[in-house]
């Protein structure tokens, strides 16, 4: 992955508006967070291969970046995004890595389902 170029990402994002997409969205603080620090409140979620079509999507911020996708019925929101790539299968992958390189958030969109 490479650091997010906001303008370039916005260009690719706008191209996907109106397309039926499969989404992977995830936040995580790691399964060991509360083990290493008992006062740490561990929370996270992931959803994989939910289908979505957005009407308009934006990437904002100075980095780490935020992303909001407006759909007919609601919204998708993500923050803490630092890196991105378009992979071999033409999927748009975003991730947020902390200062030690650990993944904290992932947001991915593709026209075909991700492997289960």
């Amino acid at each position, binding site marked *: *992955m490479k650091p997010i170029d906001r303008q370039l990402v916005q260009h690719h994002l706008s191209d996907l508006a109106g397309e039926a997409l499969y989404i*992977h969205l*995830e936040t*995580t603080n*790691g*399964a*060991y967070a509360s*083990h290493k620090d*008992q006062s740490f409140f561990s929370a996270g979620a*992931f959803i994989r291969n939910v289908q979505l079509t957005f009407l308009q999507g934006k990437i904002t911020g100075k980095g780490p970046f935020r992303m909001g996708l407006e759909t007919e019925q609601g919204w998708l929101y993500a923050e803490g995004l630092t*890196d991105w*790539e378009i*992979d071999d299968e033409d*999927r748009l*992958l975003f*991730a947020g*890595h902390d200062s*030690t*390189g*650990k*993944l*904290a958030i*992932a947001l*991915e969109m593709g026209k075909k389902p*991700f*492997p*289960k």
Partner: protein
Amino acid sequence: MEQHVLVILPHPDDEAFGVAGTILSHTQAGTPVSYVCLTLGEMGRNMGRPLIANRETLPDIRKNELHEACRLLGIEDLRRFGMRDKTVEFADQDALQSRLFDVIDEINPSLIITFYPGYAVHPDHDATGAAVIQAVRRLPEGDRPTVHAIAFAEGSEQALGEPDVVHDISPYYDQKMNVIEAHQSQTAGVIETMKQRMLEEDETVRQRMLIERFWTFPV
């Protein structure tokens, strides 16, 4: 000496930290070791240092690391169950127990190594241990293999007593480090610190690396 050892863990690299020395002691004595690994650690947070993986490439990278770790450990029988990281406790438990039972029934191990349910920190660890215990209990009482379980949750000793199986794996230290190092995407960046602390004779790290501890589970 064991006849056949079966290791059942959910994530590639689970075998590296707490079990590698014990596995090496068996394979080098000529005892076959089979390894059932339930997932590919698809949801890991470590993506390598520098970054070498993303969420979608991580499974393949970890699969290769797992195969290399098995080669270093002398494990010739690796069975990947194809489950997804983080989901073991939510999967059909009866189906999982049946798959595990079938492997146990086929291999007929004298010893199984897995996690101690309820005392293994990660929900996948606890769920794996629990499913293994249920699978073993499908066997008639006299036919059940010994189960050595790994516990490392806070308060394990208070609840379970001291571990009754304690292996000093010093003779296999270098090889164990190589196994840990094979899981490059997960361990690059921490391995140098670990080696340094070993050289400085940091007692906590020495204990963690050189002593592998298990509780015999009452099956």
